[in-house]
């Protein structure tokens, strides 16, 4: 106790700025600088790792980039034997399956998050929230297998014939194209299972962000006579906007890169762009995964790595877009994150 008193007294008159850096009395508080150094080092290491990853991808795919030019992005024929590496079908399939997944998952996740935060008893909210988080821990290949054995027959035998029978079935984008194979394995099925996989992430983050809306603000809304829906829409969602956008982009990143589940469900048609969401297709990640182990030709390996680089760049571009959007939203709502 006497040590503590003497420390406090000895520093009583010292200026505030120097108190942090100088050791107090006889004790050297080394924790702070160590932590700061380690944190800075980790941050630098992470940045270096990201840049390094990009550099490795570019270097290893250089033979393909220099030899094939833009053919990878603009042609559809994937035939390693004849050195044709057109991955346009894979690009289209990646975008389409991700689009389907986002269209299904984002509204559903927001509704579930709102439900959990605003409408149900906290105990129910906790239980349901835990169940949804458990969904996130299921390995993706299990989703792929369950999708193949349960969802594919359902789509093929019931859902797709039904929807093609309705007026919706003749809209462009839904009307079956030339590669239509029953609708079981298709871009849509892959998108549905992807939606299941990204739902937990978006729900969990949205729910946490919405819980942070100050109770006072919501009560002010109710006090002025707003309905529950009006409070949810105009206060909760608007307050949690940037957090939700962040969550959506996390889900988007996961959907873009998901490999094995999509490989099982999307039909692996490399030679034609899907004309309908019920057509089979392929995605960049599943194309790479299914072809890498048997690719002996250097140019093929390099082309596959180039596809990986393309996916890497696409994901980074989406993240940059997310950051730009978030900044715009922050500025619009007066700096409140």
């Amino acid at each position: 106790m006497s040590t503590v008193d003497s420390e406090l007294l000895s520093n009583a008159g010292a200026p505030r700025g120097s108190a942090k850096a100088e050791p107090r009395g006889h004790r050297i508080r080394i924790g702070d600088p160590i932590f700061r150094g380690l944190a800075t080092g980790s941050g630098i290491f992470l940045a270096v790792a990201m840049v390094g990853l990009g550099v490795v991808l570019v270097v290893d795919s250089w033979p393909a980039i220099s030899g094939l030019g833009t053919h990878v992005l603009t042609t559809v024929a994937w035939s390693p034997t004849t050195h044709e590496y057109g991955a346009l079908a894979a690009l289209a399939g990646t975008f389409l399956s991700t689009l389907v997944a986002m269209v299904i998952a984002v509204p559903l996740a927001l509704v579930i998050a709102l439900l959990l935060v605003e409408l149900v008893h906290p105990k129910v909210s906790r239980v349901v929230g835990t169940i949804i988080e458990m969904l996130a821990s299921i390995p993706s290949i299990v989703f792929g297998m369950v999708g193949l054995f349960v969802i594919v027959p359902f789509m093929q035998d019931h859902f797709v014939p039904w929807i093609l029978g309705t007026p919706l079935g003749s809209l462009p984008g839904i009307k079956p194209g030339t590669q239509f194979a029953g609708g079981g394995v298709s871009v849509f099925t892959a998108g549905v299972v992807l939606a299941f996989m990204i739902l937990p992430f978006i729900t969990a983050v949205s729910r946490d962000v919405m819980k942070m809306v100050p109770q006072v603000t919501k009560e002010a809304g109710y006090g002025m006579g707003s309905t529950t829906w009006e409070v949810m829409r105009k206060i909760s969602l608007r307050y949690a906007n940037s957090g939700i956008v962040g969550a959506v982009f996390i889900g988007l990143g996961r959907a873009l890169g998901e490999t094995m589940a999509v490989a099982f469900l999307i039909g692996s048609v490399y030679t034609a762009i899907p004309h309908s969401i019920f057509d089979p297709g392929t995605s960049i990640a599943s194309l790479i995964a299914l072809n890498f182990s048997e690719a002996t030709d250097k140019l093929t390996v390099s082309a596959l790595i180039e596809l990986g680089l393309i996916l890497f760049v696409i994901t980074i571009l989406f993240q940059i877009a997310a950051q730009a959007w978030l900044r715009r939203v922050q500025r619009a709502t007066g700096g409140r994150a």
Partner: protein
Amino acid sequence: MKQSKRGRLRVAGFAVAAFALAITAAACGGSNSSSSTVPGSVSSSPAASASPTLTPVPLQAGTNVGAGATFPAPIYLKWGSDYNAAKGVKLNYQAIGSGGGIAAIEAKLVNFGATDAPLQEADLTANNLAQFPMIVGGDVVVVHLNGVADGQLKLTPDVLASIFMGKTTMWNDPSIVSLNPGLTLPATKITVVHRSDSSGTTWIFTHYLTAAAPSVWTAGADKVVPWPVGIGGNGSAGVATSVQQLSGSIGYVEYAYAKQTGMTTTQLQNKAGNWVKPSIASFSAAAANANWKASLPSMYVVLVNQPGADSWPITGASFILVQKSQTDAAIAKQMFDWFNWNYTSGASAATALDYVPIPASVYSLIQKQVWPTVTASGSPVWP
């Protein structure tokens, strides 16, 4: 932020230390195949570094290390465990695909490589490899048609190729109906199911289509081909599942797979013009009738469309690749002891798993003509 000079130096120091540690860790972990127990040089060519799925296992006495095709993996593993029970030498076989096996043996990361797609003589000479067939199997065509039982549907090579090219699109097409007068074929669309991953099964099947129906099948013959129509299944299991789920579908899988899952197979017309059903007997007929002698020294034989009254047309052998100059005579002898055991005592295990053992006549050819070329310090490792 007001910090004293000493504070800033401290932060900078720790940051540099952490960074240096990270870089060192990355540099040390980078060369993961540099374990000193791997004999021979680890080639740094892109081909070798592009077999990322193989974990290098130190070559040692007591274990035969191999990698490659998934098609023969069940029988190799069975032989390995039976041999271990008999002689105490283990097998470490990584089924990473034919391409991976070829890359691994070229980089001397394993004792032997296994491939469904044999290498040509030029490739063997360039990499100083010896090649010989180890086991024979067959691919079958499977269909899902209500009212058609196993072994009932008949297809000629031209009709089969036309289906897989997408030219014949309906089951009640006249060309199919004329071959099957006793069956009622529905007016449904044919859905083709092929492999989505690069595979030796595709290699064998497309070689068959190219050999037997060259005017109709124009998509080439390789482990991956640009299929004009059809959806892809992930592995034989994926193709089988897709065919079982989709009514009106047709696909190709390994015989063992079709037999064990009770799928509906078809009859095919072989080169002699006879209708044959897939069976161990018809595969053996194809293997025996092949001209192995003329294929020496590479033993590159594609067993599809072989002559013979009973030959099954889509038969394929799986090959073993070894380095011709072995660095360790004892380890090489250990490996060849296992090979010999497989040929002489492994026949019952092979037929139990629906494979066809290499005929004894072919084995004696291998022993006399191919194995003497494998040497350690100048003298053959076998016998």
